[in-house]
């Protein structure tokens, strides 16, 4: 077992535990940067997709995982980010300006939406955001002059530092662009979590009354959380639009919202790792299913016809299994396995025991 001796407050403040851990993450980053040399174009595209989902997951994680506000409507913000970005680019704004601005616009809209939603708790907030996501579909159709309505829009190649970046034409560059956004968002997220604002998110999530007693303004904190979450989601949406190439009102349906929430639950709520793990599941599940279907077909001679809804069915079952047996998601499982190795042979089963409490209603009548 590695024991880190602490001799300096900075050791708790900086994001890595020790040099060993830091070098592991740097190695991971190096491998990720080099991906175009060890992956073919198809899988590089899939990896890009995973990274984009991870950005969206990070966005929702701020709000749901760390501030405790469940949103079933984040596809609406993906849509806003996506349309804002393309509309700006089409208006002649350089991509390097349009992209951050698209995120900012989404964040401001998100923070505005948060104001009426502030009084809502738990399921009420979930249904509010769900309705918002459903409405977004209709709003895009109604706002046809700017959104292109049902016909949708096409994403043009965009210029980044003088390079033309296009999903199909230059997959490597598009991958690096996405990776860059992922790294920046992740670093910002890590910084936030070790600063007062990130802690006040956690405080609001775990106990609003005592957060208030400690001087945390609940409404303000929730609004900021909404804004940041939507900003990051907007960036993910902008990248999704570029990745898809073409999109319309149905691209960001309410199903995407639900999928996004489920993704971070599977990955592990309340951790940055969780967004990535969840994105990996979402991104590679269809591939995994088609490969295993072929395999099953080859071995048992069965047909390989597509089963409609299979993906969602399997996804649902995975999710149920996680909620029942590992509510902390893949990240929680990963922590347990790591601890098991670190402490071998002293790991005890009850080390991560969940505290169960009887449900107490907050209703008066």
């Amino acid at each position, binding site marked *: 077992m590695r024991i880190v001796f602490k001799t300096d407050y900075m050791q*708790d403040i900086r994001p890595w535990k020790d040099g060993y851990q830091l070098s592991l993450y740097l190695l991971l980053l190096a491998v990720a940067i080099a991906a175009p040399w060890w992956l073919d174009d198809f899988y590089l595209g899939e990896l890009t997709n995973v990274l984009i989902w991870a950005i969206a997951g990070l966005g929702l994680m701020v709000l749901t995982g760390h501030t405790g506000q469940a949103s079933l409507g984040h596809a609406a913000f993906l849509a806003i980010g996506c349309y804002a970005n393309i509309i700006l680019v089409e208006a002649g704004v350089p991509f390097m300006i349009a992209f951050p601005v698209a995120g900012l616009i989404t964040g401001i809209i998100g923070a505005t939406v948060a104001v009426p939603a502030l009084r809502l708790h738990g399921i009420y907030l979930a249904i509010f955001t769900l309705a918002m996501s459903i409405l977004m579909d209709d709003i895009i159709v109604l706002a046809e002059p700017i959104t292109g309505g049902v016909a949708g829009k096409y994403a043009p190649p965009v210029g980044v530092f003088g390079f033309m970046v296009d999903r199909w034409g230059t997959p490597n560059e598009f991958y690096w662009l996405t990776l860059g956004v992922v790294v920046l968002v992740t670093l910002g997220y890590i910084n*936030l979590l070790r600063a*007062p604002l990130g802690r006040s998110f956690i405080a609001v999530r775990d*106990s609003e009354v*005592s957060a*208030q*007693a*400690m001087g945390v303004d609940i409404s303000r904190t929730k609004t900021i959380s909404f804004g940041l979450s939507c900003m990051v989601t907007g960036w993910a949406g902008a990248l999704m639009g570029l990745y898809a190439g073409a999109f319309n009102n149905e691209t960001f349906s309410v199903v995407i919202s639900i999928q996004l929430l489920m993704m971070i639950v599977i990955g592990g709520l309340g951790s940055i790792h969780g967004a990535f793990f969840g994105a990996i599941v979402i991104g590679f599940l269809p591939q995994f299913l088609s490969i295993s279907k072929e395999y099953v077909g080859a071995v048992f001679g069965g047909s390989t016809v597509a089963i409609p809804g299979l993906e969602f069915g399997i996804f649902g079952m995975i999710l149920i299994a996680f909620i029942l047996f590992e509510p902390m998601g893949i990240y929680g499982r990963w922590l347990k396995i790591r601890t098991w190795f670190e402490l071998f042979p002293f790991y005890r089963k009850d080390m991560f025991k969940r505290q169960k409490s009887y449900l107490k209603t907050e209703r008066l009548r």
Partner: protein
Amino acid sequence: MSLLELENVTLKFGGLTAVDDLSFSVEEGEVFAIVGPNGAGKSTVFNLISRFYDPYAGKIRFNGHDLLQVKPSGVAAFGVARTFQNIELFEHATVLQNLLVGRHRHRTTNLLSEVFFSSSAKRQEMENREKVEEVIDFLDLQAYRDKMIAGLPYGVRKVVEVARALSTDPKLLLLDEPASGLSVEETADMRWWIDDIRRQMGITVLMVEHDMGLVSGVSDRVLAMADGAKLALGTPAEVQSHPAVIEAYLGKAS
């Protein structure tokens, strides 16, 4: 001028009068205890000071400021910290993170400098950490620094609550039943700590407590309440021998 003043405070829930025309004041540097049977409105007084409830009538002043003018989250900024009767910690965070939330009222950085973790954000974190470490040393919490609250035993959580309140650097500390559910030894520790909080840190303490041993051991003055109203106010000995108090606890002698 007293540190905390309640003047003719009344609170009604529907038809029920929870606090009835209550007035008292807490002087700087004292330990002031509120006792009374269950449902006497003791915790309600705390919730009034924390601004969770709006009084129906009356004034609450702290250090010359009108507390009724601020939002619940603004109370801490004046230097009022509190603990809760049914522990309200941030369950899925470490002890250290809990205490650092207590430093929130001293935040000087803005969103941007935190996202980029600028040198000022770093400096602030170092200061926060030093302050929190003092509290950790004071309450002997070193062993639990990086533990999640969700896995801690009850007695430790109780101490962490006090620690979190102390981390805010308060002038006035409100302790809501600090000894409830604690063992005899833990209660004895709590007694020394309350004493030290007043003597070493110079913090005024207002507490609600049932354990009369603890109350008479540390408090300078005691307020006895029943049915939301004041019964008696004085030294622990005076209050304990006050006929109205005895009647409220034991019923009318027939």
